[in-house]
């Protein structure tokens, strides 16, 4: 318990609050890497998932759907730390090889949830939408995407959590961010720094949870919330 108190005291040392090894700088690093990886992930996986779910007809589409789900289940088995280390060892270490595992691991939840969300929209809804004269794009944007939104948000949240967590581990291979406090603390046997870093990461995770809960509240139609 004393160790935790030490960690809390660690927050109040003046030195933690400025300089390149200060909390504000490390936090902004962490947010920058995570934000970048998240943006790239979303840009790749979200349109693809929505589109695959929308097409859904025909043998090719169902094959794609099956592979998407299978690959997502498979991706769960990939060990983050191993991939990060391998990526850094086989390339010259820089930001890019570290970001790639972050993105690769975050794509499956976004892809699968967007795909499943759209694909599972009740056939009657699509039928009604088409029957009233919506074009394919209109069906996707006005009906399928809003109805799939709770699942889409779930996927985005999982990806965000995954990225923040992997970015923490990436400190081990030299990335900046909050993970530095943990890794450096472990190396120097300064538990207060390690635990302080861990507490910051936990707070960040809570913040993400909070943001997504808020997003769900704002973006998901009350008509969907009541039934689900």
């Amino acid at each position, binding site marked *: 318990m004393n160790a935790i108190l030490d960690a809390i005291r660690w927050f109040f040392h003046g030195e933690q609050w400025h300089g390149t090894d200060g909390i504000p700088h490390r936090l902004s690093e962490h947010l920058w890497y995570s934000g970048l990886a998240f943006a790239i992930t979303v840009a790749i996986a979200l349109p693809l998932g929505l589109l695959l779910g929308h097409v859904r007809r025909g043998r090719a589409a169902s094959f794609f759907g099956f592979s998407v789900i299978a690959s997502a289940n498979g991706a769960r088995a990939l060990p983050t730390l191993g991939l990060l280390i391998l990526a850094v060892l086989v390339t010259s270490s820089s930001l890019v090889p570290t970001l790639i595992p972050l993105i690769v691991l975050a794509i499956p939840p976004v892809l699968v949830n967007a795909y499943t969300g759209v694909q599972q929209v009740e056939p*009657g809804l699509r039928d*009604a939408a*088409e029957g*009233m004269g919506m074009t394919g794009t*209109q069906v996707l944007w006005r009906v399928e995407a809003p109805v799939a939104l709770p699942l889409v948000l779930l996927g985005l949240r999982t990806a965000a959590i995954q990225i923040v967590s992997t970015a923490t581990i990436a400190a081990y291979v030299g990335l900046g961010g909050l993970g530095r406090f943990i890794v450096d603390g472990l190396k120097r046997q300064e538990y207060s720094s390690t635990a302080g870093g861990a507490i910051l990461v936990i707070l960040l995770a809570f913040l993400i949870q909070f943001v997504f809960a808020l997003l769900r509240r704002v973006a998901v*139609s009350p*008509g*969907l919330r*009541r039934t689900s």
Partner: protein
Amino acid sequence: MITFTGVTKRYPDGTVAVHDLDLEIAAGRITVLVGPSGCGKTTTLRMVNRMIDPTSGTITVDGRDIREVDPPRLRRGIGYVIQQAGLFPHRTIIDNIATVPYLLHQDKKQARTRALELMERVGLDTALAKRYPAQLSGGQQQRVGVARALAADPPVMLMDEPFSAVDPIVRGQLQDEFLRLQSELEKTIVFVTHDIDEAVKLGHRIAVFQVGGVLAQYATPDELLANPANDFVRDFLGGDRGIRRLRFVQELDAEAAAERRAAVPEPAEPPPGGEAAAAGER
């Protein structure tokens, strides 16, 4: 008027859903397509708004071949009501009703005002306007479905078993109100059902389909009950006993309708301007 000429729908696996169909559906009337499941009645209905394209043959609406019209445009001019209503769960009732006017880029405020009028017209309390579909009963949802199909005032309405998901009492009410509404609006309605009672009650003309997509008989309810074309039709009507029962029910309905007319003199309402415009455009 909707005309089918030599229309056949054959699926890639060889199943024939509709076989060489010739059918004329009168304007301003309710035409009921009835038959057992797998008889092609729903396929026939869905070919009218090109949800399904026929393998061969021609379908015209008011003389115009529907293949010449882009499907989304065609569909915006044809009302469409399906079983379970197919309401959008994420939109309020009023926005559900105004779907097609929005698609046609009509003025939002006007579309909403019209949606509120339609709610009253189909017997819905306008206090429900801001609710979501999940908060409504099955019968109320079907009314919203009908109001939504009417929103852009299309001259033609396609209705696929619109009342079969609700309990018999609510179904009876919905049918009665539907007849009242139709007597005011005089839309060209194609109505699919598997329920012969419903067909006899609602239809000006009834098309009986048999399995394999063959039209067995196309007649008014009176003709149908008086002269079933073949054994299939006779059986479908429930044999001699069934025919007697249907005649009896038909008389009761007629009496009830007459009483309603006597009690509430229908205002002779001029057809709404929008309808004429929409018809002219087609």
